[in-house]
């Protein structure tokens, strides 16, 4: 079974600084997808970024980028120029490429605090 591990329950960053959230996963599959979701206090889960395992290039979305290390099964999220609105729970998630199993496997989350 796939497992996703986020080893940092809490992180903090100064406004305008950079922070990296860690995620590792365990799978025997070669094709899969990885996601980072953000859940602010309003509790609505928002997709931040996604990565296809077959792509070597790391995904980037504005101030958010990932460091995808397939061999190490590592998928970290870097937030540059942190803003107060970035404060939230961040969840790493895995999805297989196999037909019939579209559900996401989530890590336990990292609570990010942004210090003004």
């Amino acid at each position: 079974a796939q497992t996703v591990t986020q080893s940092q329950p809490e992180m903090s960053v100064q406004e305008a600084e950079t922070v990296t959230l860690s995620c590792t996963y365990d799978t025997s599959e070669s094709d899969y997808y990885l996601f980072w979701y953000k859940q602010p206090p309003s509790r609505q889960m928002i997709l931040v970024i996604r990565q296809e395992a077959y792509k070597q290039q790391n995904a980037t979305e504005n101030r958010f980028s990932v460091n995808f290390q397939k061999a190490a099964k590592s998928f970290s999220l870097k937030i540059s120029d942190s803003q107060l609105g970035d404060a939230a729970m961040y969840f790493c998630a895995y999805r297989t490429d196999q037909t019939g199993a579209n559900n996401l496997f989530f890590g336990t989350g990292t609570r990010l605090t942004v210090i003004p």
Partner: protein
Amino acid sequence: EAGVTQSPTHLIKTRGQQATLRCSPISGHTSVYWYQQALGLGLQFLLWYDEGEERNRGNFPPRFSGRQFPNYSSELNVNALELEDSALYLCASSRTGHGAYEQYFGPGTRLTVT
């Protein structure tokens, strides 16, 4: 474009009762997923519906069930409620097919069982 909607926002039930939660997907999405977010347990996959059929379910007892209607909206039913069913229930929708179709989440229903 309207996002995923869920109702009600909050639901308070007594142990042993039944709860019904509703979800409307984004227009054009045929897949609906249900997740349970219980305190201390993270997000756990419950059910996946697509084209009116249950496609996959997580490790939950049969008293968690649901259905998907012809307009792709979905209903989650929880029978014989137990105290540990208290959680935030999130619904997500996506397109269907082979590919990295992102799941978009609704705001959730907070179920409290007393």
